[in-house]
């Protein structure tokens, strides 16, 4: 494989991977907020 073709792989997989993993993290935050809602914690 040439450097350029590896670069294209890094571009495509890198962008999709970053977007996908941050999408996953945002879903995780939603889940955490559902599991531990604001104002319902014990004193």
């Amino acid at each position, binding site marked *: 494989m040439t*450097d*350029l073709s*590896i*670069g*294209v*792989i*890094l*571009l495509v*997989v*890198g*962008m999709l*991977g*970053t*977007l996908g*993993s*941050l*999408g*996953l*993290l*945002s*879903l*995780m*935050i*939603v889940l*955490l*907020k559902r599991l*531990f*809602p*604001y*104002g*319902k*914690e014990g004193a």
Partner: protein
Amino acid sequence: MWEAILSGFAGLALGVSNFTFPQFVMIAVGGGLLYLGIRHGFEPLLLVPIGFGAILVNLPLAGFMEKGGILRTFYDVGVLTELFPLLIFVGIGAMTDFGPLLERPSILLLGAAGQFGIFLTLLLALGLKFTLLESVAIGIIGACDGPTAIYVGSKYAPHMLGPISVAAYSYMSLVPLLQPPIMRILTTKREKHVVMAAGKRSVSKTTKTLFPICVTLVTALIAPIGAPLMGMLMLGNLLKESGVVERLKQVSEQEIASIVTLLLGLSIGATMEADKFLRYQTMLVLVLGLVAIGLDTVMGVVFGKLMCAATGGKVNPLIGAAGISAFPMAARVAQNEGQRYNKKNHLLMHAMGANTGGQVGSVMAAAIMLSLLKGLGIGP
């Protein structure tokens, strides 16, 4: 006798006789960095030690970067081992409030789009005949995140660490100049006027405490090679959010961050030796770094426009520009641009969310890049 006296005087002139023009140029460059830091307040905590380090390392016969030299020791112990950038991350994590991001998790996607410039610049660097690993190190300037750039740069292109870190840190402070023209060109009048409602407080303390632990676990599962970066950032944040280790939090964000910033700045300045820095490649790296941050801004705003369309006009695309790691400058730029078109529009908290998303995003993008390269069997 007279010969010995003359030799003694000749010894006093050794500095002058060994002083070269390239060293003079680099001392002037160091002076320029000091001028930017002291006179204009551009990232003074970094530019002052970097600038002075650049001056020290270009003094003739002083031997700061020779084996056993003080700056060489700092560099070997802290930069080559990746210790300094990782310790800085603990401090950044302890200083960062992810609250605005947790209030509106979808904004995290802007922090991903704000990193696309990294990957696009990588291709540009390859087109300019840099090697693959050098291109990766150059592209990472687009993370707009000094410690990440140094971490990746020291791994893949240690010989280019000087220009890479100077670009990463100096462009970070130039964000207020670089971003607004791009934001104005890419958004319509209607989009600039979109008012974003203030979110209700919706994040519990438990969520805030669990967030750094979960992010570390997710990152380690997706991109394990980048786990040290994310792990240290989130360790700092856990110290802050747990609320039970106030002393450790304070030490991380103050003493440790200050000491490491000083040593890191000096070490980076020490990489700016004339014979290594004054090259055609350095100019290309500086230009590509600028392009990377420009592309980040473009992609962030374009993604903001997509979110605006997808939410029926509830997201102001200007906050997309804040999806980079330059905290809190990028968020302030989005706020100022929003107010420029609508005095009643307060985008700051939303932009802060995107900006902290950019911090997570830049580390995640670097982690993904490191893991991809490892998966392809490339690099150390």
